[in-house]
Each structure stands twice: as structure tokens, then as C-alpha cells.
């Protein structure tokens, strides 16, 4: 039996969904009979996802590339004219091992901000028309405790996630009167390729399974109401 009945027959877009949390969200939402479209950079990851869950729609693209924004938005909205939920999952740490902020080349910070802040900003703008016209819809950005805490070495990522949290709060403040919801969700430390890239000696037994985080997130979303805090930790 599908547990996330709230998402039954809804249209969901997941930007970054071939590994970790994004992939787990895609599979569970597909299981819940949502119409799911996943965007990712690598065709092989998308092919694997489709092999596992035929019926998931996939689209290859790079959300950090300004030139691709409207091609992605047009291709997505031709297939899903009424997006109910948009998940911004794709993000980058920048080069690893993670350097101190003072050792971070300016270009690396810029690249991390482009992927983790400008990407979600541009794609939110490009994918919001249907939500704005219907006056309903939910946008979820994925946060991190590094958005709140200044952990040494997490500089570029940390800065980008703090900015993304605040962008989410601003959209929420400006668009709640239009019936739109924006939530920034910190899933906690998960057993994902990204976490091991950041912390190579992390103890896997101390890390959350991304499937568990996805379940928690999908249980939380239907309970959130306008006026609740925008940022939540799972």
C-alpha cells in the first residue's frame, strides 16, 4: 500500500533525482502514484531510474547552466502543465577535500553559488507560472545544518545553503498571499555520495538512509501550514 496518499495524482518535479535523497523521493512519490518528472545531468543515472520505476518521466539537463533554464522549463511544463510540488535537490559541495574558506578560489565559490542558489532561483522563476495562475503549489528546497552553523571547511556549501534558506523564506513571505508554499528542509546527515565526498571517514552506521529521510519529508509536507516556520529539520 502506498503511504503518501497526499501525493496521489499530483504532478511533481524533482531537480536532481538520480542519487541520494532526490532518487528516494522520486521512487516513493512514484509509488504513491504521483506523476513524477526527474531532471538530472547524467543520462545513465536517468536510464537506471527509469529501469527501476518505469513511468517516471526523465529529462537530462544541468540546472546550473543559464542557457538551459527555459529549455528545461518548457520541456517540463509541456508534460506537467500543473506542477503541484517542486523539489530543488540538486546541489554541489564544490571541490573536495573541502578547503578552508580562505583557501577557496573565488571561482569555486562562484560555481557553488551558481548551482546551489542561482539554479534554484532561475528554475523557480521559470516553473512557477502554473502555480501563480492556479494560486496553489509547493516549492521545497533542501537545506543543511551547514546553512545555520559555521563549520570550518564547509565554507562555499555553507554560504550557499544559508542563501538558499533565505531565498526560500523570502519567496514564502512574498507569495503566501497567492496560495503558494515554500519550505526549506534539512534532511540531516545521510548515507549519500555527497556526504562521503565531504566526510570521507564518516561512519555509515551513524548516517540516515536517504529513503528514511524521504519518507519523513513526505510525511511532514502535508502537515505544514501557512504561518509555520519555513525551515524544518528532519
Amino acid at each position, binding site marked *: 500500500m502506498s503511504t503518501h496518499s497526499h501525493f496521489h495524482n499530483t504532478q511533481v518535479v524533482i531537480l536532481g533525482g538520480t542519487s541520494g535523497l532526490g532518487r528516494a523521493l522520486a521512487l516513493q512519490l512514484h509509488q504513491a502514484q504521483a506523476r513524477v518528472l526527474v531532471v538530472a545531468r547524467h543520462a545513465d543515472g536517468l536510464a537506471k531510474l527509469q529501469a527501476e520505476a518505469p513511468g517516471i518521466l526523465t*529529462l*537530462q539537463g544541468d540546472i546550473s547552466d543559464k542557457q538551459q533554464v*527555459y529549455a528545461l522549463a*518548457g520541456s517540463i511544463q*509541456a508534460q506537467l*502543465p500543473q506542477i503541484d510540488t517542486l523539489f530543488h535537490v540538486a546541489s554541489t559541495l564544490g571541490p573536495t577535500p573541502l578547503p578552508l574558506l580562505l583557501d577557496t578560489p573565488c571561482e569555486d565559490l562562484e560555481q557553488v553559488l551558481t548551482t546551489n542558489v542561482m539554479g534554484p532561483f532561475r528554475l523557480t522563476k521559470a516553473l512557477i507560472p*502554473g502555480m*501563480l*495562475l492556479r494560486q496553489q503549489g509547493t516549492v521545497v528546497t533542501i537545506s543543511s545544518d551547514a546553512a545555520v552553523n559555521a563549520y570550518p571547511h564547509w565554507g562555499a556549501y555553507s554560504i550557499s545553503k544559508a542563501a538558499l534558506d533565505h531565498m526560500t523564506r523570502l519567496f514564502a513571505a512574498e507569495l503566501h498571499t*497567492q496560495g503558494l508554499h515554500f519550505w526549506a528542509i534539512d534532511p540531516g546527515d545521510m548515507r549519500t555520495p555527497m556526504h562521503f565526498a565531504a566526510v570521507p571517514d564518516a561512519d555509515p552506521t551513524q548516517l540516515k538512509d536517504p529513503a528514511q529521510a524521504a519518507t519523513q519529508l513526505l510525511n511532514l509536507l502535508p502537515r505544514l501550514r501557512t504561518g509555520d516556520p519555513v525551515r524544518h529539520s528532519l
Partner: protein
Amino acid sequence: MLTQPIPTYTAERRGENTRLLVFQKAGLQHRQVADLKDLLNAGDVLVVNRSATLPASYRAKILPHGPGFEVRLAAFQGPSPEQPLYWQAIALGAGSWQQSTESRGLAPLLKAGDFLQLGSDLFAHVLAVEQQRLLTLRLESRDLIPALYRSGEPIQYAYHAEPLNIWDQQTLFSGAPLSVEPPSASFAMTASLLHNLRQQGVKVVSLLHSAGISSTGDPEVDRLLPLPEWFDVPEETVQAIRTARQEGQRVVALGTTVMRALESAATAQGKLSSGVGLSRLQIRPGYRFQVVNSLITGMHEPESSHMRILKSLCDLDLIQKGYREAQALGYRDHEYGDLSWVDCGCSPGAVLA
């Protein structure tokens, strides 16, 4: 001549500061788009086009060994936004967008049955050819919509100094990509104005209409414009219009594409119904409007099909007076220019039961 084109063209948008020339029975007003929140009343319905704009110009060749030419998608024919297979298109010869379409050469002689390559994974079967240039195409690709974006370039205007980017062509409402030129009356719309209009009690609803090509450079083909264009009017929009009509409120079309879709949806069966269709309507002076009372549109050239629409919505003397004043005040015309609102109290005729 009503007006002369003013040669100051960029894709810069002025949003709510865009000028708005208001034509009403009471007379003319020179306002700004931001003032729509005061000019529209609670209960009025503003209908917008939520079509996005494709990069619709392609480098083509006839397979296997034909010479190169340009194909411009001209109007979407169906069957659906998910499967944008059938198009009318224009074949253009050598040259670039910096030349006016009129001065471009002829494309190679095309015939039904030709197979064209438009991109690395984008092909077209030629189903019919009219006037040498006007093609009916069925597109073919493993992944059609991404292929259209990968291989296409935005349709450009010779009166622009810089080529347009794809983002220059999108609006606040851009959804499924079916238009080949932007539904440009929406360029002035901002989230802030949308908030203000809704706060005022104006109902903002949408439809999909595939805005087609505005000019081909060939007088024989231009005579056929606007070509039949695919549209889809949702039931919620029909309901909102019905309510406005019952309450004696206005139905305002944001752009001529919206007007064409609504009028076509009505004339099909003598009453306004929701659903998909092809707009074949040619609006000329004397046309009796079925659905729309009022139109927000750009500042147009004197002999355009748009100008014929204005003349059918409002007294010719007032239109001429307005355009003379606009010219003196330096209004900007064309796609990225200023707007006019023709609101002369036209009372539509369709049965909205």
C-alpha cells in the same frame, strides 16, 4: 499613415512603468500599466496566455544532399503540447536576421514528400507546400521538445540592435512552449501587478494559445496571416467569463492571441465552450465580438492585422487621435514597446448559458 515606427528597439522591459494608452468612450488617457489596478474593477476578468515561446528558427537541409536554408515554425497545429508534431512553417533563403525578411532570398523548391533535417536529432516530413514558402510539417525526433530547444534559435526582428535571447521571449506566465513569437502584451506583467490586481478583486485566468509568426516577408503568404493556431481554453476560464458576464463585468484579453482563442472558442458552436481548437478567425472592422469586451495590446503599425482588430473594437477617429498623441509623446511600438487598452464598451454577443 497613423504612425511612423520609432527606431529605438531593445528587449528591455519596463514592467509596470510601461505606458498605457487608454481608449474609452469617455476619451483618451495616457497612463501606466501599474494603473490597471485602479482602471479595472472587482469582478473584471483578465485573461492571459500561458504559452511559452520556442526558439523557432532552424537551419534546414533537404535530405539527403540538398542545399541549406532556414525553416521558421509559423503556427502550431497539434495534436497536443506534449506532442507538438504538426506545424505550419516558412522556408527562407540565404541571409540573416539582420536583414528584413522581405530582402531574403528564396529557399530551394520544396515539395510534399521531402524529408528535412532541422538539427542533430530533429527531422521534418513535408506534408504540403503552398505559395512556395508555406510548409505543413510533421516533426520527428526521439525526444522532440528538448530537440526543438537544442537546435532552434529565437526568431529575431531586424529592427533590434542585438539578437534576442530565449529569456527575452518569455513572460510571467510562460508554461508549455507552443508560441513561435512571444505573446508580448504580457511583457509588462509583473508579480507585483498581479498581486495588486488580485487584491483589487480582478480575476486573472489563463488559456493556451500558440502565438504564430507575425510576418513572413512574402506578401502572398502574409495575406494568409494569421495562420490557423492551436488553442486550449480551460473550463475554469469559461466559468470565470460566464460569471463576469452575468455580473455585468468586463472580459479583458491580455493580447490579441487571447482574443483570438476566446473568439474562436465561442464561434465554433455559437456559445463559449472549453477545450482544444484551431483559431481560424480573421478579425476585421465590423466583426461582432462574441466574448471579449476589451483588449490590452501593443502599439501597432498602421496596416497590420492588429490594427484591423483595434478598428473593430473602437471608433476609428478615436484610434487615430490616440495614435497621433502617442506618437507626439514618444510611445514605443513593436513587441517590447508600450501598450494600449481598447476599452470602448463593446458588448459581446455570444450565448454564455
